[in-house]
Structure formats: structure tokens, C-alpha cells
């Protein structure tokens, strides 16, 4: 019996791919013919359509860039936002294409490409904006207000930076939860401008705060710069991808993808004006 258990464990171990810390190279990806990519469930940055295919700013650009590199197939995984970096580190996929903001903290964990998009912040509230909110700092002024954020998203940092207390913050798992959350458990949902606008289009009883003032952190209004994340050890793959991405950013096809998801010309220009090294250094 003991032996049977041991055999079972041995059989399981055989099916396990034992991967050390060796890097994944472009050649390996090319000979495999496909690459594993991941995105979070967030319209319009990255999401899965009802037919199971991936769409959104991140996946669409990634598919185009990989095509330039001669890789015609990307196998997409959709995973909760907060598990993108853990999944990357656990070698579940080669890149995360979810327009994650390139922040110094994340740069310590993963290797980002040059920015692919830029976006400001937004607030989703009940229809009519009963609490008359116009920016994140309004929430800090009234300790009885609650604000929802998605687990793992950086909006929580901006809320904290303008003085919102942790007991005012309601953590939710996915964007789709925001609609019912702002009806009941929270007075507002803090997310990016585009996320909020897509949610406001879809929900009848909610609206996007307009005009909205971006929170001021360290003396300047915050702006997020979304990039693709790779594992630091896959430097060669990341560099090849990055070079192709920078080339692709110069084309009209690129702009077409971004504008089709509602990104403005100014946001596209702002993204190209920044570079990843400065963003990782917190500049």
C-alpha cells in the first residue's frame, strides 16, 4: 500500500515540468511557435470575449508585436489582477499584458517594457453623484465615506496619498463587482478613467464623476503608464519584444488599436513621451 502511494507520487512527479530559474529565450518561443500571455479581466485594457479569445489594449498590441517577431500564436490566460505578477514569477506565462502601471515597486519584481498606454484616474458613483464627489481627496475629507478598489490595483496608493484611511477602503476582486458595490457597500469606486467610463456605459444606476480632478501626489497630478511585464531573467525576450514594440508604436496600426478602445490622442502622446527607466526610478 505504501508502495502504491509512492508510485502514485512518482507518477505525478513525472508529469511535472521541473523548471529551474533558466531564462526563456526568443528562440525557444519561436521554436515552440507560441507564447503564453496573461491579462486581467478589465475592459478595455485586457479581457476575454465570449468566444474565449482575448481582446483589449494590452492583448491586441501584444499579438501584433509578437507577429512582428515571427510568433503568430499567443495563448491567453485571464487571471485576477492581483495574481498577474505572482503568476509571472511562478512561470505560468511569459508576459502580462494588462496595462499595469509601471511603478517603482513593481519594477523590483518584474521587467517592464516601454509604456504602451497612459491613463488618468476616475471615480464611479451612484447616479446623480449624491455625495458630490469630484476627486479622491473629497473622500478623505469625510471619514464616513467608503471607496472601493480592485485588489492589487495601484489606485489604493493614490487614495492613501491624498489622505484616505484604510478603514474607508473596500477591496473587491473584479471590476464587474463595482456596479453592485457602489449601490451598497461603498460610495464610490476608484479606478482608471477608461475603466470607469466603460462601467458607466454598461450600468444604468451609476455614473462617472465629471468633471473629475486627478489626485495630486508629490505636487503633480497622477498619470499611469501601462506597460507589458516580463520576468527579469527573460531579459533577451523582453528586449526583443521591447524593440519591436517601440517600432510598432510609430505606426498607424498601433494608434488604431489604442483609439478603438477609447484612448485619446493626448494619452497616446503622453505614453510615448515617458520612458520605462524614469518610471521605474519614480521620476
Amino acid at each position, binding site marked *: 500500500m505504501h508502495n502504491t502511494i509512492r508510485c502514485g507520487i512518482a507518477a505525478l512527479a513525472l*508529469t511535472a515540468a521541473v523548471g529551474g530559474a533558466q531564462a526563456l529565450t526568443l528562440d525557444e518561443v519561436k521554436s515552440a511557435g507560441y507564447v503564453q500571455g496573461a491579462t486581467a479581466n478589465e475592459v478595455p485594457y485586457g*479581457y476575454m*470575449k*465570449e*468566444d474565449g479569445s482575448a481582446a483589449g489594449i494590452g492583448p491586441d498590441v501584444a499579438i501584433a508585436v509578437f507577429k512582428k517577431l515571427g510568433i503568430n500564436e499567443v495563448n491567453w*490566460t485571464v487571471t485576477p489582477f492581483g495574481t498577474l505578477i505572482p503568476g509571472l514569477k511562478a512561470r*505560468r506565462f511569459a508576459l502580462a499584458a494588462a496595462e499595469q502601471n509601471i511603478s517603482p515597486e513593481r519594477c523590483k519584481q518584474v521587467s517592464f517594457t516601454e509604456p504602451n498606454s497612459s491613463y488618468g484616474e476616475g471615480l464611479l458613483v451612484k447616479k446623480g453623484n449624491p455625495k458630490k464627489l469630484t476627486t479622491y481627496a473629497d473622500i478623505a475629507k469625510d471619514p464616513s465615506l467608503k471607496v472601493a478598489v480592485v485588489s492589487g490595483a495601484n489606485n489604493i496608493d493614490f487614495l492613501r496619498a491624498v489622505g484616505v484611511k484604510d478603514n474607508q477602503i473596500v477591496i473587491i476582486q473584479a471590476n464587474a463587482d463595482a*456596479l453592485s458595490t457602489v449601490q451598497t457597500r461603498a460610495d464610490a469606486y476608484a479606478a482608471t478613467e477608461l475603466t470607469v467610463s466603460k462601467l458607466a456605459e*454598461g450600468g444604468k444606476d451609476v455614473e462617472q464623476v465629471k468633471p473629475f480632478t486627478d489626485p495630486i501626489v508629490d505636487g503633480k497630478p497622477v498619470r499611469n503608464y501601462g506597460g507589458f511585464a516580463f520576468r527579469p531573467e527573460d531579459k533577451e525576450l523582453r528586449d526583443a519584444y521591447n524593440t519591436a514594440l517601440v517600432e510598432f508604436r510609430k505606426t498607424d496600426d498601433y494608434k488604431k488599436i489604442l483609439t478603438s478602445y477609447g484612448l485619446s490622442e493626448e494619452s497616446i502622446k503622453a505614453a510615448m513621451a515617458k520612458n520605462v527607466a524614469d518610471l521605474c526610478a519614480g521620476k
Partner: protein
Amino acid sequence: MTWTQYLAPLMKGAQITVMISLTSIAFGTVLAFLAGIARTSSNPIISGIAFVYVLLFRGTPLLVQLFWFYYALPLIGVSFDPITTGIMVLSLLTGAFGAEVVRGALMAVPQAQHEAARALNFSKFHTLWHISMPQAIIEMMPAFGNLAVQNLKDTALVSLISIADLTFQAQSLRNITLDSATIYTMTLAGYFIIALGLMLIIRFIEAKLRRGAAFPRSAHS
């Protein structure tokens, strides 16, 4: 999108849910018998291993087990694909709970029968196989039925390690349509229908086993 358009993706997810549930119930049952019988062994090493296994898997939450196997284990160099991880962890959990069912049912066989078997010079294996097990297995069925349904419902957690099961498909649909009420209601109905099917299968197996028993015994004979 209307509710009829949700059906196709939800059905696709339901297939994965059924596959994962049936596979992990099968593996879990094997583990349950191995560990349950091992727990009654007089060899301290065998019963010790089974005891630690049952203790660990009964004593920790399934979600954390899944995350540990999916996100933590690869950091020390061992990686299974999502489906394998999901089936493995669910099997181990179901096996741990099932082991206690098996052990309990075996221990409920009156001691006098063991003595009688020994008087007739039955080996330990023969006693187990011909005396204890045929009686115990019928007693296990209602508890196994519970575990099987519990297993089905637990499969919903594998959606969090990126397996496209029924819950995962529901979350994806909700993300693009924002129609939580309809989608969650349909998802509940989906699980309920699968659970009904599962209960029918268990009933069928139990009825078969009872018919095969020469002397259907009462609970406290």
C-alpha cells in the same frame, strides 16, 4: 447580449467543471481508501503517513492549497499546469475527508467479527477484503455522496487559478456584460443540475451495493 447567448460559454465551462469534478472524485476515492485503510494499519509508519496527510489536507483551506500548488510550488522548481494542479489538489482534499469516512466505516464493523475471522485463520487481508470491507462500503455511501457534492461545489475555486470552469466563464461574461444577476442565477442553476446528476449516480451505486449484500444489516447490529 440576452440570457440565451450566455448559454454557450457557460456550457463550455460546465463541461470543464464536470470533468474536473468526476476526475478528482475518482482519484479522491482511491486516495480515501488507501489512506483510510492505512489509518487502521498496525504498522506505525503506514498509519503515521496517512495520519499526517489527512491532518494537513483537512486542516488547511482549499483556496490556500490551490494557491500554494499553483503560485508557490513553481518557485521551488516544480510546476504543474492549471488543470493538473486543480485535479491534484481537489483529489488530495477529497481523499483526506474520504479517508476518515473509510476509517470510520471500517471501525464500525463489530470487533467480534474480527475475532471470529481470526479463529477461522483468515489473514489480515482476507479479513479486510471479505469481512470488513463488504459491510463497511455500504455504510460509507451516504457520506461519500456528501463528499462528492461538496467536491463539485469546491471546483468553483479552480477558477482562481485560471481554469476556464463554469465559475470562470461566469466571471468573464459578467466582466463584459455587467449582467451579474442573470449570469449568477444561471451559474447557480448549472451547479444545481450537475449536483442532481451526481446525487443520482451515487444513489445508483449505493442501490447496487445494497442489492449485492447478502445480509443487509441494520445500523446498530
